[in-house]
């Protein structure tokens, strides 16, 4: 087993899938010779050439739309959007076209493709290089939404996403890219889309999270265990759509309390869906209000480090929220 960070895991997934399936191609801004602004595609241009690792003009609409055309034609495009914040010029193609072509054609066409997007804050990127905009996509029927939190999940889920017959949006929290290394199974190991994982067992309350928040929640759980004797169960959703309700409800049935954590602003965020589902489907198991902890209601992460720190959710705020809920 190799020790990889998330960025390396993502690169390895693309490399392996391009090796085994010549329909797989990469397109995006600066993905070729430069290897991507974060280096996710480093080395692939040299290995697979100019066409299969294609530098596009600066047009996200074009990237999404052309990827869809190629997917319908029979390729397996992996499109990189340089920052999730810059996906909006491609929103029309994603929401009107990519998500709907299978249904609207009565199942006779489909768009098997992946859109990879670095998202999230804490990297001094301010309003437009820090967004967690997953909720715009999780509401969109026809898309699958993945947001891994570990190198093994990043690799295994990206491989699954590339093979998936449906369009997948793949959210990579950019703060996690080089955050830590961990073991990644060698060889052709995939992680299935649609399965959450219990990252830490606990009996007192459940914390639901994904992406970078997995790391924060696990750290918070250790603090809670050490300082409060509270055993938090941490559930890493990994896939946001389709949501693994079975694992979520099983956890709530066990602990009776649910804390939902994400970095995006709270109002209408993805946490609302999780909270609403739990409160409807696990009503009789709840020993306390389903609680959401989310980014503040401002239009983005502000730049200055003091303001950014104010915005970001880290282990201490999770500990606070969990303490309150545990004491309920």
């Amino acid at each position, binding site marked *: 087993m190799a020790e990889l960070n998330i960025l390396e895991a993502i690169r390895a997934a693309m490399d392996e899938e391009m090796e085994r399936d010549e329909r797989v191609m990469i397109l995006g801004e600066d993905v070729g010779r430069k290897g991507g602004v974060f280096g996710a595609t480093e080395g692939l241009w040299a290995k697979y050439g100019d066409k299969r690792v294609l530098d596009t003009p600066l047009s996200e609409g074009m990237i999404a739309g052309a990827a869809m055309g190629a997917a319908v034609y029979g390729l397996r495009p992996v499109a990189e959007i340089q920052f999730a914040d810059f996906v909006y010029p491609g929103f029309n193609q994603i929401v009107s076209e990519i998500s*709907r072509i299978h249904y609207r054609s009565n199942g006779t066409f489909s768009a098997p493709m992946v859109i990879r997007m670095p998202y999230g804050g804490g990297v001094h990127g301010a309003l437009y290089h820090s967004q967690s905009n997953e909720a715009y996509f999780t509401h969109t029927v026809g898309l699958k939404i993945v947001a891994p939190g570990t190198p093994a999940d990043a690799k295994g889920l990206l491989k699954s996403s590339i093979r998936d017959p449906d369009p997948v949006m793949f959210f990579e929290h950019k703060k996690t890219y080089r955050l830590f290394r961990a073991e990644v199974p060698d060889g052709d190991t995939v992680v299935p889309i649609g399965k959450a994982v219990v990252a830490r067992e606990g009996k007192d309350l459940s914390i639901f999270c994904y992406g970078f928040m997995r790391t924060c929640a696990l750290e918070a759980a250790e603090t809670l265990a050490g300082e409060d004797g509270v055993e938090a169960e941490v559930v890493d959703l990994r896939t946001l759509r389709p949501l693994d309700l079975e694992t979520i409800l099983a956890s709530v049935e066990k602990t009776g309390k649910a804390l939902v954590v994400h970095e995006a602003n709270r109002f209408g965020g993805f946490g609302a869906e999780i909270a609403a589902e739990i409160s409807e489907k696990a009503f009789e198991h709840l020993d306390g209000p389903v609680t959401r902890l989310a980014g503040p209601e401002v239009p983005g992460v502000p730049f200055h480090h003091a303001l950014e720190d104010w915005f970001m959710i880290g282990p201490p705020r999770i500990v606070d929220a969990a303490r309150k809920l545990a004491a309920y």
Partner: protein
Amino acid sequence: MASTDTRPRHAELGLGDADVLGMYRAMLLARAVDERMWLMQRAGKIAFIISGQGHEGAQVATSWPMRKGTDWMAPYYRSIASAMTFGMSAEDIITAHLAKGDDVSSGGRQMPGHYGGAPYNIISLSSPVGTQVLHAVGIAMGAWVRGDDVVAMTSFGEGTANQGEIHEAMNFAGVHNLPVIFVCENNGYAISVPLERQVAGGSVAARAAGYGMPGVVVDGGDVLACYGAAKEAHDRAKRGEGPTLIEARVVRLTSHSSDDDQRRYRDPSEVEALKERDPIPMFANELRANGILTDDGEETMRAEVKAEVNEASKRAEARPEPTPDDAHERVYADPIPGGGTAVPLAPVGGGGQ
């Protein structure tokens, strides 16, 4: 075309008499289907119709060089004649408008005018205008990446030409010399907004220069001119020389759709004058002048077309309605069972993969 050539124009273009008669027949058939559907709309059988009347010459001619089963098409909502030239039958078109359960385009899920057909390499159309143009470019990109001999063609109106995605599509096609043909059917109106309020400078073809590709303006009433431009574009694409933008100046003989009434924004005299630019009599005149079309020939043709449309609508009407039982199906393709299993390397291209 050398003007010293004494052959008729179609021969200069490499078309035989049967070809041009075939084109003429295709125009008549598209028009007949179109007119029939307006009747069905008025009779309450079809909920909505958006018409191709006046566009048939440009559509048949520009679609004519496309190779069925090989090339791809991303049409728009007026593309009745294009879609039919590329393989859809009269019955297919009418079935789609009736929203029948086995309609090839959408099984009754989409509104009339949203063409598509996996067996024909016609990619399913949505409603937001212009999105299909990027799909054609994506198909061309796919063919280029794989080294396939495939040309993609797409069509759209002059109003739609002002959507940003069109610009992005053409520029990308120009950068890589992708095998794609852009056909702008300029009928002078985008619903009620006239060309001069819509397209700065008044010419869509003029934009081609900014994308490093040829831009050609053709009279949509001049079927052979349209064909010539499309044939040249198709040849260029096949030779790897890249995309072409064709702007066909056509007339919209009807209101925008059955929901619109063009008398609200168009002069009666203007509407009246359009008839003179109807491509069907214009092409007929040319064929007659060349002695290719006779009164008898035309009469037979029209009778055949009428019979075909009668037959097609009868069969289409008899098809089954969709039922809500499976309206929640085919939202996602089947998930891949199990983890780690290799996806077989399927051949690409053809029939919606």
